[in-house]
């Protein structure tokens, strides 16, 4: 019987393969173009955002203490004396060649300020992925296997409640619970002496990682659960069950590989979301990452730093969204046939 099904699908495939592959390629190219277009649009928006400042950027940086000479100096440094298109070009080419300019606050290279923070944030995201993704997926599978029963209802209600909470509320609740008011287990602030790595004192990573994990748990959990339930209800699983396949084999060999395909896409989307969510969580714990750096430079009105960090976060977001879409189409080729035609 399984063989029959296999033959039918092969036949269907071979007749539609060429067309499907063509459409797949067309979709991929279109999606990559859209991604590139979005990145360009983000560049333009980030650049123009600094142009809407009342007066000009130099005035905004210096505030009331501006002397004409100092204003002129900053204008030259920001290339404000050039035409708009030239300014944009100078900025973009500077970033592409690895020279995003100097900080307006202390004159150091912007990259010296930003890159260590990128590494710190990357550590945070990596650890969050390692902790949160397996737990969310396993709980999702468990809930799906016990769908409708107490276990499932319980985890689902928790997930639904957590889903609503803003990141900083999760962070503060965890501080109240684990650091200050109920238990006194973990440091409430992630203080890192300048020049040293976050990894030298791993205990400070626990709270931010825990917060981010709680924040991205519900989404991944719900996707996994929905996906596994759908696969378990499909005909080929019914077939395998009737054939007498043992339950563990049914779950691990037949159901999960197919159910986890959409989950891979959601992982990419979750990471994309975290690129933005990390800003607030870093602020809660004073963690020395890009998010905290962005907020610091916003307070100091350090425009080159703001521009670079926003652009970096945006690029990560766009690229991960792009990856998610491509993965989704590669894993489920039939989609390219109708889904993207109709939208």
């Amino acid at each position, binding site marked *: 019987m399984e063989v029959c099904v296999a033959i039918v699908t092969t036949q269907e495939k071979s007749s539609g393969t060429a067309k499907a592959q063509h459409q797949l390629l067309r979709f991929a190219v279109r999606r990559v173009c*859209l*991604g590139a*277009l*979005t990145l360009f*649009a*983000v560049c333009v*928006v*980030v650049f123009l*955002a*600094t142009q809407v*400042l009342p007066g000009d950027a130099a005035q905004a940086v210096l505030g009331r203490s501006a002397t004409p000479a100092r204003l002129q100096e900053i204008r030259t440094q920001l290339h404000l004396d050039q035409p708009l298109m030239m300014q944009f070009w100078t900025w973009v080419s500077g970033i592409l060649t690895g020279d995003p300019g100097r900080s307006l606050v202390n004159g150091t290279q912007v990259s010296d300020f930003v890159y260590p923070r990128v590494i710190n944030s990357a550590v945070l995201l990596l650890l969050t992925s390692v902790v949160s993704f397996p737990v969310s997926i396993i709980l999702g599978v468990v809930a799906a296997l016990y769908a409708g029963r107490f276990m499932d209802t319980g985890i689902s*209600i928790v997930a*639904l*409640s957590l*889903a*609503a*909470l*803003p*990141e*900083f*509320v999760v962070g*503060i*609740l965890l501080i*109240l619970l684990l650091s*200050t*008011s109920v238990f006194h287990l973990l440091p*409430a602030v992630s203080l890192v002496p300048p020049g040293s790595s976050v990894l030298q004192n791993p205990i400070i990573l626990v709270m931010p990682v825990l917060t981010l994990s709680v*924040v991205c748990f*519900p*989404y991944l959990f*719900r*996707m996994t659960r*929905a*996906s596994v339930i759908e696969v378990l209800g499909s005909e080929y699983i019914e077939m395998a069950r009737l054939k007498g396949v043992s339950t563990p084999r049914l779950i691990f060999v037949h159901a999960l590989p197919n159910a986890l395909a*959409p989950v891979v*896409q959601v992982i990419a*989307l*979750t990471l*994309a*979301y975290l690129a*933005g969510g990390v*800003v*607030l969580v870093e602020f809660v714990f004073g963690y020395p990452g890009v998010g905290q750096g*962005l*907020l610091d430079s916003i307070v100091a009105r350090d425009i080159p730093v*703001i521009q670079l960090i*926003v652009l970096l*976060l*945006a690029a990560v*977001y*766009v690229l991960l*969204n*792009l990856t*998610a*879409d491509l993965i*989704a189409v590669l894993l*489920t080729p039939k*989609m390219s046939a109708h*889904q993207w035609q109709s*939208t």
Partner: protein
Amino acid sequence: MAIDLNGRSAPSLIGTCWRWFRDLKAGAAGLVIGLLIIGGAIFGPFLAPVPPTDFVGSPFDLPSPYALLGTDFMGRDVFSRVLSGGVQVLGLSAVATVAGVLIGTLLGIICGYLKGKTDDVIMRLLDVAMAFPQTVLALLFVSIVGPKLWLIALLVAAIHAPQVARVMRSVALRVSEEDYIRYAEAIGVSTTRIITREILPNLAAPLMVELGLRFSYSIALIAGLGFLGLMADPSVPDWGMMINENRIGLLLNPWAVAAPVFILAVLTIGTNVFTDSLARTKRAMPAAAADDIISDEMPANGQVAGFGNGHGAGRGKV
């Protein structure tokens, strides 16, 4: 009360409402909690024992009969500030949500009903908008233009609109295939009239769900901006801002932080639970629409998902 032939009472309006409410189960609890907090926030400023800007003691006093939740970092009454701190967040969230959902619905209907070139152009633009990391850009704009209330409302509305448009478009697409729309077109009813009289009423249920969903995202976003200190006027009490400014005294008077945090937590959970059960109640809306909204929360179909922007699974905070 009307009695039908079998002797059972025909469904009265109240009965129908009650059954609908009962079906929402957990949702009903969420609704009650949400309404209580919203009501508290609206009437709170009138109930506050002392004006929220008055100094009643030294900084971070513990709760006492004079200050039920203690005092904040400047020695102001936390209880009064919590009562007054919701108006700004909830008012702004409401404005931003309504504006965003209205614009999104309008765009969605136009795309779903007119189809063709208009649909293509608008949807491609919305795709680009959704591929933006909107929250980070919102932060950028607020920081550069300055914390203006209109700007915050505008940005949050702009974050919602594309997502809402996508959901509404797919519902409108389905509705526009119905026979009665074809019939209306055949007898020459004007496009505007078809949109307002035939299509719009069919969107009422998904519209409700979108409003609820977007409202809880708005609260999260705007409270987040307050927490980051990006709200307009630092002297206006604001839940998000209170959490941040009283953090330094967490060990002295935890209530100054805990009270606004608990309120925000309970409020967002309440609205989310209510909206979720509303979306799942088939009775409240055509089945197709319910599926759409739930799948919007879970963009499984390789849609360009701006992560739902809010995270009733998709979340999109600052």
